[in-house]
């Protein structure tokens, strides 16, 4: 979860794992009082954000981190945990037509390129990109519907 949070805040994907490591090292060095999962999550996110902010020199870049943090809070609610969102997304992916699910798996899971996917699914390369964009927009809408309690 911490790696997802850092990624949403704008951390480069090749830095995310290092940052997560640094967060845990720092927390272990400084000591940590266990007050339950919610408090622990909030604490770790706070440390992670500060660590990321330290890497951002400019005011604008720091502001972007803060805005992304606000977005995370808005999207994940008071608990700050995204488990319920992932469960909702899982259900949405399960509900996709087989072709959409395959496209998602081949593209993200297997790392197939657009040309290969185009040949496989009978589309041009740009069509794959458009299909992927629509797929993502549909998944976002589906997650939001489910979180609002609409099936």
């Amino acid at each position, binding site marked *: 979860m911490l790696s997802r949070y850092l990624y949403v805040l704008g951390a480069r994907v090749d830095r995310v794992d290092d940052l997560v490591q640094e967060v845990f090292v720092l927390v272990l060095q400084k000591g940590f009082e266990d007050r339950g999962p919610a408090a622990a999550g909030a604490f770790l996110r706070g440390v992670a954000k500060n660590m990321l902010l330290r890497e951002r020199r400019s005011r604008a870049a720091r502001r972007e981190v803060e805005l992304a943090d606000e977005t995370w809070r808005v999207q994940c609610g008071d608990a700050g945990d*995204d488990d319920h969102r992932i469960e909702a*997304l899982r259900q949405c992916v399960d509900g996709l037509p087989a072709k959409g699910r395959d496209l998602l798996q081949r593209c993200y899971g297997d790392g197939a390129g657009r040309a290969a996917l185009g040949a496989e699914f009978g589309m041009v390369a740009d069509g794959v990109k458009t299909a992927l964009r629509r797929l993502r927009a549909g998944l976002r809408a589906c997650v939001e519907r489910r979180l609002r309690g609409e099936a």
Partner: protein
Amino acid sequence: MNAQVVAERARERMLSAEIAAVLQVELASVDAVGVTAPRRRSAWLAAAVVVLGTAIACGVAWLQQRDARLAQEPEPQPSSREWLGKQPQDAEVPPLPSLLLSSLFVSSVVEPVVLPGEGPIRGLAHVDGLVWLARGDALLAFDPASGKVVRQRSLPAGLLGLAADERFLYVLEKDAVTLFDPLALEPMRSLPLPEHEADGPARAICCRGDQVCVAFGRRIVAIDRRSGEVHELPPGPTGMQWLACDGKALWGGEERRIVKLADAGGARPMEAMDLPRTMTVQRGAGVFVGDQLLGAFDFTDGAGAPQHVAGYVRLDAMIAAPEECLSIKIHADQQGVKYEVGPKPIRQLARVQLELQRIVQDPRSMIPGPNGKRVLIPIVLQAYPGVRVEDLAAAWDVALAVGFEQVYCPQVEVARRRAASAKGK
């Protein structure tokens, strides 16, 4: 970058991270597949040129202004008693500013400016160099230097007050404070207000650091913007209509006064500036623009007619006037100096000392301090025409010697501040 763009990008990244979790693949696998158009290199180049040019221009301007700025660095100011000691001892004590003694024009306390919009004032806030004004049915953003309106939208429903920190606008509502992004003017999230049924409705709001301060009647709370944790602050005066923060201290406005509120540690008592007697504020708002307090007041004049004034409040007219105090009035007449310690007239300074020693021993002289501990009642000295500086200074020293820690003289404080202000100019 536009806040909406940043938020949208964060939502896209959130979806990517969640897809990676659902498909049980590395984040890098999802991140590598771009679905949005990459930024054009020419845009980066143009941005770099602009940034470099701006940096050079700023550097040159900074070097040019450095000497002037260093010359303007404020010197540490002496206390009122120290300042009094440096005045000619046989001179007469400066009189109280006339605004405290008689009805004066509003301009004695406010340097007027014209605020945009129409209708009653509902709130003022300052963020990113712009002043936001909630007035009538509109929320307006204007440049305080030129007065030019740069943004305008309809007022959020249920707005009771307005505040801002470095990034967000905070709209006070009946049961919550809603954060607005000032760029997108979209609500970001809400902070619930603590229970306040017993204290009355929420009336005023301001931001201090990471805290959002809200007043319900006399009760003032500081809500942590991030955690929502609520801290109680020392109570303010009754009938507070607005709150503002100068970066450290909180200020509030009542019907007839502007007050600098006590701090949580009890190091600073409440101070107050009386408004002219003809001015009864019905609705007010205030915000610090730099170190200047910009206020807007809908008030009734001496004849009861509704009036409006807005402008920068002359804080040099501020006087130190504790809420509960022991008054020592000093008169000069043909027989010499006469002291009135409370209601008691005394001729000799030695007897003033004895009277103050008696008062120090009296348990009733201990009053609740801002931090809950009991403290000795403050003393306010008031010198009438003809009283010399050395007589006032002697009475001041006696009060300090007896053990009173808080001794004020409003007229000396005003004179000291005016002298410091004149020296600065």
